[in-house]
């Protein structure tokens, strides 16, 4: 177990290093002198000097990276030249919104996927299973940006439900009911993708598990269907579900960009696109770094959880 965790940690450090080099190098993809592009042509010499100092631009590339990573490790992602606020402050304000969005969407997705997968797996190729499998296959092909647009068209424009449309976001602190209303459509959109994934993985795994001998044993003991499903079948099958959830939740951090963008919800995704459109390159760089590291950390966390639930994984 300890060896497994140590090995995973070493990989994690390697991946984070690669991400940091990639994020650092982004600035150098800009055409021409980074200082001119970041500050604009009308910048004063003092501002240019400040940027050169902040990024160490007149030094060799390796030294620049060391300067930059030194700042980053001290929590300094630079100060935006557009808004004059530290990049980290902006990111800190946005993160809780993504967290709330992902949390709500996962509650909906699990609450739907687990019971339905159990129902479907009890009679593979039955009517319910066929409908759910065909439906989930169709939904799998529909990208989230289409789902959110159609939901907004239907719910907030056709039905006219208040506080669900674009720009209706209110922070959790000021009015939690309106906050939940404004997050309803984006979290349902994210939940649809997760639901489809969880349903398909759990259904397939349950069908295999239900053919195991210990299930026949439990049946012949006369245990109730409910108890067999939850205690005997769901527990071994939850390992696959957990593994899928880890990758999926990490991906949602980036998948949330689209729904936030449409509804102007000021999470990381909306902030990132706004930063790209206003050429706030330091903020873009900071968000890319934080989101990438966040995704990798979430994956690591779930790998760890999976190995606790199923210790066999760590012995392989």
């Amino acid at each position, binding site marked *: 177990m300890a060896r497994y965790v140590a090995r995973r940690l070493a990989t994690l450090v390697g991946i984070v290093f690669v991400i940091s080099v990639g994020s650092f190098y982004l600035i150098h993809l800009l055409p021409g002198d980074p200082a001119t592009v970041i500050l604009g042509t009308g910048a004063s010499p003092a501002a240019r000097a400040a940027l050169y100092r902040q990024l160490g631009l007149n030094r060799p590339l390796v030294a620049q990276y060391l300067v930059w990573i030194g700042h980053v490790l001290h929590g300094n992602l630079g100060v935006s030249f557009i808004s004059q606020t530290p990049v980290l402050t902006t990111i800190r304000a946005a993160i809780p919104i993504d967290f709330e969005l992902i949390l709500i969407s996962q509650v909906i997705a699990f609450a739907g996927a687990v019971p339905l997968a159990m129902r479907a797996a009890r009679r593979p190729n039955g009517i319910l299973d066929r409908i759910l499998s065909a439906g989930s296959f169709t939904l799998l092909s*529909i990208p989230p*940006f289409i789902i959110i*647009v*159609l939901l907004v*068209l239907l719910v907030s*424009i056709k039905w006219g439900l208040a506080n669900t449309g674009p720009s209706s976001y209110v922070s959790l602190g000021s009015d939690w009911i309106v906050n939940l209303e404004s997050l309803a459509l984006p979290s349902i959109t994210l939940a649809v993708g997760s639901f489809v994934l969880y349903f398909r993985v759990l259904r397939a795994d349950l069908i295999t598990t239900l053919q195991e001998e210990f299930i026949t044993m439990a049946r012949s003991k006369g245990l109730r269907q409910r108890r067999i499903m939850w205690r005997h079948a769901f527990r071994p099958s939850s390992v696959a579900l957990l593994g899928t959830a880890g990758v999926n939740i990490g991906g949602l951090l980036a998948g949330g960009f689209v729904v936030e*963008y449409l509804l102007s919800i000021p999470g990381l995704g909306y902030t990132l696109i706004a930063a790209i*459109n206003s050429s706030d390159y330091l903020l873009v760089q900071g968000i890319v770094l934080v989101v990438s590291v966040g995704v*990798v950390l979430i994956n690591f966390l779930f790998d760890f959880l999976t190995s606790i639930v199923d210790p066999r994984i760590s012995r392989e």
Partner: protein
Amino acid sequence: MSDRPTTPDAPEIGGDLAAARPPLGPLFWISVGWLGLNVLGAVLANVLPLVNPLAQDYNFINAGPSLHHWLGTDDLGRDILSRIVFGSRVSLLVGSGSMVIGFGVGMPLGMLAAYRRGRFDAVVTAVMYVLLAFPAIIAVIAVLSFWTPRTLLKIIIVIGAASIPLVYRVIRSATLSIATREFVTVAQVQGARDGRIIWRELLPNVAPIAVSFLLVGVATVVTLEGALAFLGLSVNPPTPSWGNMINESRTILSQNPWLAIFPSIALGLFLLSLNYIGDRLRAHFDVTEVKL
């Protein structure tokens, strides 16, 4: 096309399993037809009797479907049907172009790594798994936001590069399951060269898996391009694409829902038929043991 396209050369696989193959079904051929129609439309868009996708008709601003404009017009009075047909070019170009890059690099690497094993395999696989660790969309957005100005070619290159690790993983595991089979060992014992074994023994057996994954891969990269276009990070207006049409409808959803609905249907049906064909082919060639 016959009912059984590209039967593998090796009789070991083709012979006895062919009887157990599930039929492709009518929905499969409908999907193939729809896909063909899309390709035909994109290729022949200039020849077809369509309005210029950039021409503005001031008598029809944000108009719904009518005899003049079958699918209505957008906020600048441009014909939605024409823009959808011309817009399919972006999706098809991104889908095929980036898969050429993804398969061109990922497939030889994956086959070589799985056949040779050893240090080469270990190093390449480790690098690819590091690259797979974070979602492609972040890397693609990051690179495209700095590497300006954005052109279709750059978008294809970036998305294609991002797809290499995915292709590599699938092809490697597909090759692994075949490279250990008896007929490969027989060829080795007979003294066949590595190049010949990869070309004549492995490739024909990996090809069906590669084709079914190729379709899913096209769907994935087209979705990615759609998301980029929706975020305003793909080809610049006024060039139409399904994604940027939905993006343009964003601010006028209540006045003109058709501008959002029709491109969404076009993109949705396109992706659905790709995924369905890929799924049926996978079941047909019975490649479930390969993790896709």
